[in-house]
């Protein structure tokens, strides 16, 4: 059981890398969020009519959308009557002609302008813009802000969650590795972890990658499995964490699989992409771009699957809870809503495991496709 000690170093390296890269991936998220078309109503009367009619529904939609986004402070709940938010603020780290570090409490949840060293910043729909002292934001024709955006390296809610999970993983696996020094049977929490590690090794890594080559990739597969699973489970708690339902994070995770697959690929793999054996030459030329595109669609499917599954799960659970507030008869709605929420929550517990498993499974499948030897070619 010496293998776990070496894996630990890889594990910690990957956790750090994940955290760092995700901060940078925020810019990807920014650009995706900015391409979303805002809801434009044709006339103002229609807007007002709509708002009166579905004010509660709109509020719930806004709340759910806010939950799905990353945020610069950690709010557990808000008191609408007093306008008070309960939670804690997080550090804002900006690069704008020099490093600016301040607390997100300066924004007062987007209500005020934060002034730092003569520069003024305002929070608008979860993004930080540079403004003047009054906090004016100018818009273009599509109602997108035209203000300058400083580079945002803030420790946001998602980054805090990921750091938390990384620390949990490090703690769990260090204690497990240490327990193997005392004897072959793990003690305490390691008894839960060992079967899971064996499961990933015997059911995922070995059948897909192969007996000879699987060891090199166990570190990544185990890290990604426990990282996604723990984050999915944290998303089930009422803390308001939604990390794996954020496309920037899943892009990052899929990118790891993509890079590992491409860099561990042998010449058989590239041969099958650029010069498919066993087919006529014109077909080889047609197949090459298709196969090349295929290497990109695999990680794309990987990232979209995780993102969409977790997002869908969060939306469904929150909508079912919201049934309490849209209905008129509380006594009738409450039990139905609670029963449905419990039912979906139990399914989501399964989905949390399944998505982590599928991500690991497909990652090892892709790696296995890249490293396997093609013995059957001799028969052609």
């Amino acid at each position, binding site marked *: 059981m010496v293998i776990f000690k070496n894996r630990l170093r890889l594990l910690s390296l990957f956790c750090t890398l994940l955290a760092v890269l995700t901060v940078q991936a925020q810019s990807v998220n920014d650009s995706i969020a900015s*391409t*979303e078309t805002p809801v434009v109503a044709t006339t103002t009367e229609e807007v007002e009519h709509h708002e009166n009619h579905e004010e509660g529904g709109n509020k719930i939609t806004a709340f759910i959308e806010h939950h799905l986004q990353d945020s610069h402070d950690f709010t557990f709940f808000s008191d609408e009557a007093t306008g008070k938010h309960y939670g804690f603020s997080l550090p804002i780290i900006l690069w704008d002609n020099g490093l600016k570090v301040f607390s997100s409490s300066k924004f007062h949840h987007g209500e005020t302008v934060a002034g730092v060293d003569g520069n003024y910043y305002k929070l608008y729909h979860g993004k930080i813009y540079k403004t003047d002292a009054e906090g004016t934001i100018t818009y273009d024709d599509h109602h997108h802000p035209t203000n300058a955006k400083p580079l945002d390296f803030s420790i946001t809610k998602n980054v805090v969650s990921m750091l938390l999970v990384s620390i949990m993983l490090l703690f769990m696996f260090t204690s497990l590795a240490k327990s193997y020094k005392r004897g072959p049977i793990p003690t305490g929490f390691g008894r839960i972890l060992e079967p899971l590690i064996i499961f990933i090794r015997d*059911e995922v890594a070995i059948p897909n990658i192969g007996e000879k080559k699987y060891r090199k990739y166990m570190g990544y597969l185990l890290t990604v499995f426990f990282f996604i699973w723990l984050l999915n489970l944290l998303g089930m708690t009422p803390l308001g964490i939604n990390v794996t339902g954020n496309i920037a994070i899943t892009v990052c995770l899929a990118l790891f699989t993509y890079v590992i697959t491409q860099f561990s690929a042998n010449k058989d793999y590239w041969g099958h992409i650029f010069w498919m054996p066993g087919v006529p030459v014109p077909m080889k030329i047609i197949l090459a771009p298709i196969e090349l595109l295929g290497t990109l669609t695999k990680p*794309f*499917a*990987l990232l*979209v*699957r995780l*993102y*969409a*599954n977790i997002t869908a799960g969060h939306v469904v659970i929150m909508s079912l809870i919201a049934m309490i507030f849209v209905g008129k008869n509380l006594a009738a709605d409450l039990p139905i809503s609670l029963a449905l929420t419990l039912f979906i929550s139990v399914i989501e517990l399964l989905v949390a495991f*399944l998505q982590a*498993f*599928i991500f690991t*499974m*497909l990652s090892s*499948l892709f790696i296995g496709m890249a490293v396997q030897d093609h013995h059957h070619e001799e028969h052609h």
Partner: protein
Amino acid sequence: MNIPMLVGAGLVVIGAGIGLGKIGGSAMNAIARQPEAAGKIQTAMIIIAALLEGLAFAALILGKA
């Protein structure tokens, strides 16, 4: 309401439903024929279901964007 998008989403879900039904049905058949291979069949079934689901989700998300 964006009617074409909703119709498209419905079509995607119908397609995914047919696909999942076929995968599940064949897996049930296979397990009934060879109960000892149930574990392997289940793993293969989940992988194919996940691939299909990825396609369906890709269509839904590209439709939304």
